[in-house]
C-alpha cells in the first residue's frame, strides 16, 4: 500500500508536468488550429537557455527568469509572427503544410541544440532539494509534491484567468467562434498571440520541472512531444481539463506499469492508451463530439 501511494504520487507529479505541455498544445490548437509538432522541443529548449544563462555567470533563479522570457519571445511571439502567421496568410493555416512546418521546426530546434551545445546529456540543477517525508511508512518525495503543487497551481491560475477575466473570456470567444469574436470587436489576432505566449510559458515551466529528472538533452523533445500530443488526444483535444486528465493519466499509468509490470515496455504505454481511446472513445475521455464549423 505504501509503495502504491509512492508510485501514484510520483506518477501524478510527472503527469502534471506532461499536462502543462499538453494544455499548451491544446490551447494553441483551439486558438489557431495549429497542431504544433514542435511542442516537445518547446519543452526541451528552455532548459538549455537556463544552462547558457548560468554559463554566463547568472544565478540559477535569474537564469530561469531570463530563459522563461527568451522562450516566451522566441517560442511564443516569434513562432506565431514568423512561422504561423505567414503560413496562414498564404492560406495554409488550416492544412497539413503548417503541421509539416512545425515538424521541420522541431528538427531545426533539436539539431541546433545538438550543434551549439553538444549531443551529451547535460547535468541540470534541480529546482529543490531531494528530501523525502516519511508519512505512515510511505516515502514521499518533496520534489514530487512540489511538482504537483506548482503544476496544478499554474493550471488553476490559467483556468481562473480564462474564466474570470474579460481578456480570458475574449480568448475563449476567439477559440470557440473566431468569426463572432471579430464582429464583436475582439482583437482576435492579439488573443491568439496571448495563447502562443501562454503556451511558451507553460512549456518553459514544464522544462524547468522535468529536465532535472531527464537531464538536459537535445533529444528530450521527442518523447515529451509525443506524450503531450497523446495526453491532449486522450483527454479530448479541445479542452484544458481534458489535457490535464490525459497528462495525469499517462504519468500514473507509466509509473504503475514500470513498477508493477515491466519497465522495458513503459514507452509503449502511452501509445497503447492512445489506440484504446481512439478505438473506444474517439472524442476523448472528457471530450465532446461537437463538430467544429469552419
Amino acid at each position: 500500500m505504501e509503495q502504491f501511494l509512492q508510485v501514484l504520487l510520483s506518477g501524478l507529479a510527472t503527469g502534471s508536468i506532461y499536462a502543462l505541455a499538453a494544455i499548451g498544445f491544446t490551447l494553441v490548437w483551439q486558438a489557431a488550429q495549429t497542431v504544433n509538432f514542435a511542442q516537445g522541443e518547446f519543452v526541451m529548449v528552455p532548459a538549455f537557455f537556463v544552462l547558457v544563462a548560468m554559463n554566463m555567470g547568472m544565478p540559477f533563479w535569474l537564469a530561469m527568469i531570463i530563459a522563461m522570457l527568451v522562450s516566451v519571445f522566441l517560442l511564443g511571439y516569434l513562432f506565431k509572427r514568423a512561422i504561423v502567421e505567414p503560413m496562414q496568410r498564404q492560406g495554409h493555416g488550416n492544412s497539413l503544410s503548417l503541421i509539416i512546418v512545425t515538424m521541420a521546426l522541431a528538427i531545426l530546434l533539436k539539431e541546433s541544440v545538438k550543434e551549439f551545445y553538444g549531443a551529451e546529456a547535460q547535468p541540470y540543477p534541480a529546482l529543490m532539494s531531494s528530501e523525502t517525508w516519511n508519512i505512515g511508512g510511505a516515502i514521499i518525495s518533496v520534489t514530487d509534491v512540489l511538482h504537483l503543487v506548482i503544476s496544478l497551481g499554474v493550471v488553476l491560475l490559467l483556468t481562473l484567468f480564462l474564466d474570470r477575466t474579460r481578456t480570458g473570456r475574449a480568448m475563449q470567444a476567439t477559440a470557440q467562434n473566431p468569426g463572432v469574436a471579430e464582429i464583436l470587436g475582439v482583437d482576435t489576432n492579439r488573443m491568439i498571440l496571448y495563447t502562443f505566449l501562454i503556451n511558451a510559458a507553460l512549456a518553459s515551466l514544464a522544462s524547468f520541472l522535468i529536465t532535472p529528472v531527464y537531464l538536459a538533452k537535445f533529444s528530450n523533445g521527442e518523447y515529451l512531444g509525443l506524450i503531450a500530443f497523446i495526453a491532449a488526444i486522450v483527454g479530448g483535444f479541445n479542452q484544458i481539463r481534458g489535457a490535464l486528465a490525459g497528462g495525469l493519466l499517462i504519468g500514473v499509468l507509466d509509473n504503475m506499469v514500470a513498477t508493477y509490470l515491466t519497465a522495458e515496455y513503459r514507452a509503449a504505454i502511452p501509445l497503447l492508451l492512445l489506440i484504446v481511446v481512439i478505438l473506444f472513445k474517439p472524442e476523448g475521455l472528457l471530450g465532446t463530439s461537437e463538430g467544429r464549423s469552419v
Partner: protein
Amino acid sequence: MLELKDLYGGYGKITILNGTSFKIPKACITTVIGPNGAGKSTVFKAIFGLLNISSGQILLEGEDVTGLKPKQMISKGVTYVPQGRNVVPQLSVYHNLELGGITAPDQDKVRERIEQVMDQFPMLRQFRDRKAIELSGGQQKQLEVARSLLLDPKLILIDEPSIGLSPNLVQEVFSTLQRLRDQGVTILMVEQNAKAALAMSDYGLVLELGQTRMHDDAQKLLADPRVGHLFLGGHLEEEEEA
C-alpha cells in the same frame, strides 16, 4: 443615414458587388431581398469591414467609413448580426452579452447596459448563467440581437434573422426590431422570407447580381408583381423586355 456609392468588391478574385448603390433613411427598417447569390450578405460584410472593397464608397451619416475594420465600425455605432448561430457556445448567456460591449472603455456602463438589455429580454435574465449552447435556436437568436444592442447602436445590420426560427419566434424578433426602430435605431435587414419581412418594413430594396434593381416603399414592393417573379427565378430585365 447610410449610403453606398458604386461599390465593387468580393472574395478573392470573384467580384460579387458590381457597383452596388443605395441610400437608407434613419430610424427606418429597410429589407434587402433578392435571389440567392445576389450579394445580400456580401453587402453587409462590405459595410462592416469584413470584405475587400476594390472601389466605391460607404458613407455613414455623411462620413466616409469605407474600409474601416469591424472594431472601428462598432465605435461608429454600427453592429452586425450575421446569419446562422453566432453565440460563443461555452460561455454563459451573461458573458456572451458582455462580449457585445467588449470594445467599450467604461465597463461599469456595460454592466448597467446588460441589466437593461436583460429587462428587454427577460428570457436572458432567466438563463443568464446557462451556457449559450444550451439555449434553443430562437433563444440564441434573441441573445445575438440583445448582444448587438449593448453599445446602443445607431445602425443594426441583421442577416436572415428568421432562419431556423418558428413563425411566432420570427414575429417576436420582428417586433423587437420594430420597437428598436421606434426608438430611433436604423435597421438594415436581409431576409429570405421576403413577404413577412417586407410586411414589417418601411422600405424594401431588391438586389440582383450585386446591383440595386428596385428600391421603394416596402408595401409597394410587396404589391409589385415583378418582385414575385424575381423570386420564382426570373430576371428583371426579361420582365421589362416582355
